[in-house]
Each structure stands twice: as structure tokens, then as C-alpha cells.
């Protein structure tokens, strides 16, 4: 029978092995869709991994690739971009630009040794709180498995 036992005392050693590793994920969410979905998730008291630090932008097309690179360099373990579904962009074509940038940037980051799972682009509509919850939870779990990025640079 399983017994309730107090959690083992964390040592720095077990921490570095990743058992208690909590990824830091920077999430750039479009004001018109994914940000609204995260708001809806909050209002609906849905729970999702607290690892995402949300940055609200007016359009996913506002996200310069250097924002993503800066996030990784500054200690993010993952970066997520949330934008409107194709055809739904509030500014008509911002999300298409993001899609094409993502296609190149994802390949480029892999050349730098940053795994594909650490950089995601998701189309999540304003009413898709459930999808947001699942995506965030999955990304957090994926990165927990990969371990910290801990970017050192040159």
C-alpha cells in the first residue's frame, strides 16, 4: 500500500538531474486570438502549466525573429508563438508572415542545436481555451523531457 510520505529533501544534485526542472517558456500571444484564449482559460478556471510567461503582441506578425533568439539567449527553455488561424488574421496577412518566418527560423535554430520541440508555432482561436491548455501542457512536458537549454553562447 502506498503510504503518504513527506517529499524527499531536494539536493542540488537531484535538481540538476532534471527531476524538479521547471522549464521557462516565453509565449508570444496574438491579442486577437491566442491571448484571448488564455484569458478565457483563466476566466473558466482551467488549469495549465504555469511555465509559460505570456507576452501579448498585437499580431503574431509583430514578432521579429530576433525576439525569439533573444528569449533563448536570455534563458528561455522554449518559445511559443500563438497566432490566428490562416485566413483569420486581424491585419489580413500578419500570420502568414509569421508562418514563413517560423519555417526558416525553426530550421536555423536546429542548426544552432536548439531542438525543434523548443520552438513552436500554434494557431489557437479566441474560443479555443481547451486547445491552449493542451498545447501549453504538452510543450511543457516535452521540454521537461529535453531538460534545460541553459544557453551559454560564445
Amino acid at each position, binding site marked *: 500500500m502506498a503510504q503518504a510520505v513527506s517529499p524527499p529533501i531536494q539536493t542540488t544534485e537531484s535538481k540538476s538531474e532534471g527531476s524538479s526542472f521547471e522549464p521557462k517558456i516565453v509565449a508570444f500571444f496574438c491579442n486577437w486570438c491566442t491571448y484571448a484564449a488564455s484569458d478565457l482559460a483563466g476566466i473558466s478556471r482551467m488549469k495549465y502549466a504555469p511555465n509559460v510567461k505570456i507576452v501579448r503582441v498585437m499580431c503574431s506578425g509583430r514578432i521579429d525573429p530576433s525576439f525569439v533568439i533573444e528569449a533563448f539567449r536570455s534563458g528561455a527553455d522554449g518559445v511559443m508563438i500563438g497566432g490566428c488561424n490562416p485566413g483569420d488574421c486581424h491585419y489580413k496577412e500578419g500570420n502568414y508572415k509569421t508562418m514563413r518566418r517560423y519555417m526558416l527560423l525553426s530550421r*536555423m535554430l536546429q*542548426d544552432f542545436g536548439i531542438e525543434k520541440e523548443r520552438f513552436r508555432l500554434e494557431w489557437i482561436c479566441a474560443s479555443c481555451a481547451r486547445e491552449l491548455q493542451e498545447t501549453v501542457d504538452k510543450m511543457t512536458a516535452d521540454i521537461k523531457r529535453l531538460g534545460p537549454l541553459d544557453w551559454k*553562447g560564445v
Partner: protein
Amino acid sequence: MAKPKVAFYWCASCGGCEEAVVDLAEKVLDVVAAVDIVFWPVALDFKRSDVEAMPDKSIAVSFINGAIRTSEQDEMAKLLRKKSQMVIAFGACAHEGGIPGLANLWNRRAIFDWYYRNGPSVASKEGAVPMTKIKVPEGELELPEIWDTVKCLDQVVDVDYYLPGCPPTPKLIANAVQAILAGKLPAKGAVLAGTKALCGECKLNSTKPEKLLIKDIKRMTEVFLDPEKCYLAQGVICMGPVTRGGCEALCIEGRMPCSGCFGSLDKTPDYGAKALSYVASIVDVTGQEEARKVMEKVADPTGIFYRYSMPASKLGRKRQKGAN
């Protein structure tokens, strides 16, 4: 009044920057008449000990080209910095890392393994690998150590000015020398070239459409370039929109698109990110699968967008397993 003392030195570079000095043609005589060259290993027989014997700050200007990737280059850069009043990073490699900087996608071990063991042109699979120390009958010999990471000059010493280009054009070199001699230099840290993007000085700029959109990306081998029409409008990636001007679009005139050797503009935080962003933005394809096909025609995004600037970029190098 004594003539100002000048030093030239090369680090990890191809020699093209030294060639650029010679390309000054007869103007080089004016330079030689105006200055006293005290150190230039590629052309004149001076030794490191000669530099070591000079008093600190006795050299007016040191022009250092090439990236820094060995212990020797690091020592020489630091020695010249100590002996010089002014250090100028000369050429793309010293400026932002240049072509040697692409080695930052690997590390020393991977490079040695390929070039001395596994490469298809290596005869012996147990080939000799460079070492820093070896014993010979005459005693122990020491060679410089190659680093895992290539750096640009300002990552190892303080740099006063930058002369960009692969190599810098004779005109820019002559202008820089004149500015130094006349004491008319801009604020420290300036790049001694244009301040606007290359498109501004390109002859083909007038043929660039108002709203530049392309349906496909073409590689140079796929297209007969019309030399009278903006290359971007013809679907060939040209780095003009994101690259510092000052070269007078020489490559464009030679029917080659800009590859970005003058590096980033003053306000660009990361050249590769900016270049990637602009290329993705002008492709006018919205379907996911169609867009993927077009973007895949950018065969090597990292190599194209960071061709001259990987060490100076925000990420700087490939993540090293173990070190991270």
C-alpha cells in the same frame, strides 16, 4: 614631426584583406609616404619580439584583419592593443566573424575529426591531428591552440573602429586612412562605411517594385539574371535591404546578388534574424504546403543569413553538449 606608426596584422583570414591594401594601387605610395609601417608580417620582415620591444601606445593605428580562433591570434591582438593608440577591425572577419565564423556550427573536435580522419580526401584514417606540444630531438616544440569557438576582434580586445567588407573596398580604406591622418574620425565604435542599406546606393534600386513580393525563391543556377532589373524582383535572394551600404554595390554590377559582407546596420540587433525576417516577409505565398515548398528553396538558412556574422550574432555559436 615623426610620421605616425602603423601596424597591419592578420588572424583567421584568407589573405584577401592584405590584398585589399595592395589594391590601393598607386595610392598605397601616398599611404607609405604619410605613415611609418612598423609591423606587417605578410609583406615585411618584422617579428613579434620587435613589437614586444616597442613602448606601449607607440603605434598610432593597428589594422587587424581576420577572426580570432587560436591562442596565438588572441595573444597578438592583445599585444597590438597594448602597443597601439587605436585598433581598427579590418574586414568582415575581424568585424563580425566572417566566413571562418561559420566554424561555430561545429567545434574543434568535430573539425579535426573531419579534416584529419574522416573526410573523404584524407588518406590515412589515423592521420596526425594538430597538437600544441611535441617532443623532437632538439627539444619540445609548442604550437598555438585552436579554439572551439571563433570570435570576432571586439570579443577579445577593445576596438576603436570597424572597416567592413570582404574585403573592404580600396575607396573605403583610402577614406579611412585620410580621416585618421586628418584626425577627422567619427565617434568611437563607428563602422567606417555607409549608414544606410545597400539598396539606397544600388543602380537597380529604381527597378525595385513599390511593393516587393515574390512568388518563388530562385537559386542562382536556376535563372538568367537580367542585369538591368532588381535581382530580388527576379526571385534571387539579395541581402541589399538589410546590409550596410558603402561598397557602391560592386557585386550587383558584377551580376552577383549581395551576400551581406558589410554586415548589419547600426540599429539591427541581429543580422541573420533580420535577413531571415525580410526574406520570409516578401514571399507572397499563403498556403501552408506551398509556402513550405518555397521556403525550403532557401537551402541553408543559417549559412545564407549568418554567412559573415555568426560569432557576432546573438546566439554566437552552436550549442555545445557538455558545456551547456
